[in-house]
């Protein structure tokens, strides 16, 4: 129909849906991503939604990449825009030669017409008015119709869509037919009016294997179920809410006492975050595995209690699903802005163990491990997820659990142990560093009528938990806490090395460090740079404190790029701080506009710096 340039691509496409929130577009859009997944092609959907419930623009960006690049990529190949509010900006995002699908019920505003992209109008509203009676249906099915149309345009196997509908409505079977009908309406219309498939299309592959498509928050919630969390206290806040929702959903299925039908867990919606972490501390103190989850403002409110848990040495598992700060900031946009706030949370000299998951599988594993770490180290452990990882579906290795695995409950004396100690003329001291690793032995309340009870407090105390204002005892205790923090290095996950296949065997003196959701984009960037002959080695940081491997990696490089999704380069600062490296050796790469970082952005920053360097050198020589 149109003689404009049309880009063509096979299984390397970015599709974006522009819609209005509260119109049920989410499930339709998800069906699209799932269909690609089921065709065996790696897919990475990202939901860009407003901090609002109904009526504002919302977007769903789907990257399809058989190369397996799952980071975000800018430039939209095919845009489906059914929201007049955002159409003007939507049009701009399409790449030259790209495709723009819109609701042609009303004619397209001429100001939106670009001569370098291809327009495909489908009268969605008109079709819905014709086909459906009630307004809600008209709204809902519009979304399903455009999925049907895309199936034709991109050559998605229609049967996969019908299967997905069937799966979606198990229990509500009578909804299957109308949905399939809606799919067909779109499918037919596209075939009738356009030459389908388009030059950009998908084709079945077998690249998914046993991978799964799941959100990080589901992984975290499941991880907590498997790790044996029994007491969960929380306060709702986006984007962490679904961590607890996932926990509760699975616990309600998997943690019901068969005899009584009662719950082998407790979830309490607290009145605020102070109370939520207080309950978590109380439960851990009393020997249950407990956690809370929060975001931004909640982290600030938990500061005082985190300091108590650090100093009184009570295990705490906290899942922080980060969002764009400061203050309320952009609550529905992603960032990594709480690294400093969490590493040093609370007044006084404090340090906290942090974990940095990069995918749902790591959300599952690290959340589960966080319980072992918190109890082993008797201190708060914070899982540093973010909105992108937590709320978007990510292609992930399947979750695994070793049935032989026993929980590490850390150092806890039971009644027998207490009797033993005294038999040998010893005296139990809660904060005695018996093993030299800085970690004392806890006892749970209710253990023994006359032995092992102690008083937990946020004030200074001696090795026997007796209150003291003696400066030397105070200082010794503070030093032991430092010792304990170093002990953490023996237990926390190690960083992971990455390099481009093209860089194999090509030693490099330039490093690139990253963490969390920067991983996908950075790994992609490594390939692009390698293709230009720029061979960098990558290290994905998985935990704080930093283990020797991180030290060694920096040592082995002349310069290291550090990727942060925040303004102040917080991870870079933390590295400089804690490893005493020369700041000049670490180059900050900062993305903080609230959108997930892209490989192109990273490449651009790296090239700039390296070119500047060689330019400088040329000057020198």
């Amino acid at each position, binding site marked *: 129909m149109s003689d404009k340039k049309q880009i063509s691509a096979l299984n390397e496409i970015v599709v974006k849906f522009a819609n209005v929130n509260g119109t049920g577009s989410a499930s339709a859009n998800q069906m699209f991503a799932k269909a690609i*997944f089921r065709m065996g092609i790696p897919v990475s959907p990202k939901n860009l939604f407003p901090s609002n419930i109904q009526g504002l623009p919302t977007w769903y960006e789907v990257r399809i990449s058989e190369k397996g690049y799952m980071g975000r990529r800018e430039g939209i190949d095919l845009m489906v825009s059914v929201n007049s509010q955002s159409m003007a900006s939507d049009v701009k995002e399409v790449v030259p030669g790209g495709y723009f699908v819109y609701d042609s019920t009303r004619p397209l505003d001429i100001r939106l017409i670009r001569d370098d992209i291809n327009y495909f109008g489908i009268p969605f509203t008109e079709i819905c008015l014709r086909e459906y009676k009630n307004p809600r249906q008209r709204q809902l099915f519009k979304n399903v119709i455009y999925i049907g149309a895309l199936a034709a345009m991109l050559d998605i196997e229609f049967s996969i869509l019908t299967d997905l509908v069937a799966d979606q409505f198990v229990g509500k079977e009578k909804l299957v037919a109308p949905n399939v009908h809606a799919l067909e309406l779109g499918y037919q219309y596209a075939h009738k009016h356009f030459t389908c498939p388009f030059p950009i299309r998908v084709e079945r592959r077998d690249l*998914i294997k046993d991978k*799964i*498509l799941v959100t990080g928050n*589901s992984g975290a919630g*499941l991880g907590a179920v*498997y*790790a*044996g969390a*029994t*007491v969960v*206290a929380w306060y709702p806040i986006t984007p962490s809410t679904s961590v607890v929702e996932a926990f509760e959903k699975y616990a309600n299925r*998997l*943690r019901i*006492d068969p005899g*009584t039908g*009662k*719950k*082998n*867990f*407790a*979830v*309490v919606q*607290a*009145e605020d975050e*102070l*109370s939520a*972490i*207080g*309950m978590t*501390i*109380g*439960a851990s*103190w*009393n*020997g*249950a595995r*407990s956690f809370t989850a929060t975001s931004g403002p909640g982290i600030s409110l938990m500061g*005082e*209690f985190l300091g*108590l848990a650090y100093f009184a040495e009570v295990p705490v598992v906290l899942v922080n699903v980060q969002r764009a700060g400061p203050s309320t900031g952009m609550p529905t946009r992603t960032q990594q802005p709480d690294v400093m706030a969490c590493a040093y949370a609370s007044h006084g000299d404090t340090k906290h163990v942090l974990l940095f998951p990069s995918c749902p599988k790591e959300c599952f594993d690290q959340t589960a491990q966080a319980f072992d770490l918190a109890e082993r180290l008797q201190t708060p452990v914070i899982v540093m997820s973010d909105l992108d990882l937590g709320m978007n579906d990510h292609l992930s290795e*399947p*979750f*695994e*659990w*070793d049935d032989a695995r026993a929980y590490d409950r850390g150092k806890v004396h039971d*009644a027998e142990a207490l009797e033993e100690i005294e038999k040998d003329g010893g005296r139990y001291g809660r904060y005695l560093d018996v093993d030299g690793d800085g970690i004392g032995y806890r006892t*749970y*309340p*209710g253990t*023994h*009528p*006359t032995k092992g*009870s*102690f*008083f*937990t*407090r*946020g004030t200074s105390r001696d090795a026997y938990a007796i*209150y003291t204002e003696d400066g030397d005892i105070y200082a010794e205790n503070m030093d032991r806490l430092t010792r304990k923090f170093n002990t953490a290095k023996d237990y926390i996950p190690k960083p992971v090395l990455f390099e481009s296949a093209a860089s194999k065997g090509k030693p490099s003196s330039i490093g690139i460090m990253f963490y969390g959701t920067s991983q996908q984009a950075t790994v992609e960037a490594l390939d692009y740079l390698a293709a230009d002959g720029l061979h960098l080695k990558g290290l994905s940081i998985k935990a704080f404190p930093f283990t020797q491997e991180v030290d060694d990696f920096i040592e082995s490089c002349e310069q290291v790029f550090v990727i942060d999704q925040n303004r102040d380069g917080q991870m870079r600062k933390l590295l400089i701080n804690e490893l005493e490296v020369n700041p000049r050796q670490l180059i900050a790469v900062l993305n903080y506009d609230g959108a997930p970082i892209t490989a192109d952005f990273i490449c651009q920053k790296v090239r700039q710096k390296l070119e500047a360097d060689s330019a400088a050198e040329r000057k020198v020589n």
Partner: protein
Amino acid sequence: MSFIRPNIRHPETPVNAIGFTRKDYEGALSTLCAGCGHDSISAAIINACFEMSIEPHRVAKLSGIGCSSKTPTYFLGNSHGFNSVHGRMPSITTGANLANRDLTYIGVSGDGDTASIGLGQFAHVVRRNLNMLYIVENNGCYGLTKGQMSATTDIDSINKAGKTNHFEPIDLVNLALQLGATFVARSFSGDKEQLEPLIKAAMSHRGFALIDVISPCVTFNNNPGSKKSYDFVREHCEATATVDFVPMEKEITTSYDPGTTQEVTLHDGSVVHLHKPLANFDPCNRRSAMRAIKDHQERGEVLTGLLYVDTDPVDLHDMIDTTNKPLNSLKEDVLCPGNATLQTINGSFR
């Protein structure tokens, strides 16, 4: 395992039903001011626990920050204690109770700790009807920070520094009743005859039990003009009735004149006897309690004693339907669904 009390004490020292002496319920030496009301409350707790023959380690004592919140160090030395942060004892206790519903929880707080910084957590622990004894050691001032006024300081009360309070005081008893507390009492640190049976009854209550104990601060708020001084309180107290507590096991020995005595049987079978109760006052009727309290307040009097009790309370565990076993006693076998299940869950993500 079961425990036998090591018998290394003087044969004469009295022991309770389970073989513990009063000493086994004592704590460290108090560092409070000589004459501080709080110390009398600690003594009452010690007596109550001793006489009720509670195994010391089956009690957990928790507090916030303040002179009052220091006191758990001074009683029940064989019980675990948690002196947390200012105003947040309720959340810590809630978590602890969720982890192990089988222990007895005694929370100690002050009027600053509860009515100022802690008011939100106080209100919400009441709502959840957490099974605990919550004692407010109420001296109408901030003792540990040297005597500032608190939110319970009475109108026109004058403190040691000579300042007069103009703010509406928060009456924690009214508030708790308003918020649905299932056991509410007020007492006076100077009246152990009343305080001890109230503590026993409160510990036997399966739900949230508040005892607001007026406990004068001899150093900063015991002066003439203060409405929380020993003298003022003694002069202005009236009791709903004299209280006598008979634990479940014991059958009643002393016989009471039904005309002048009202019996309240608690959920666990123990009985509270109220002698010579106020005219038309019913401790099982929330509104009558609120009415009586207000009537007395309007007369400038402080109504003490057992004010209200719900004999069939629904506590937090009932509301969220947790299992009867302490959650902290569950092991991998019940907690971890295993890998096979996980693989089916993986299937749902494909």
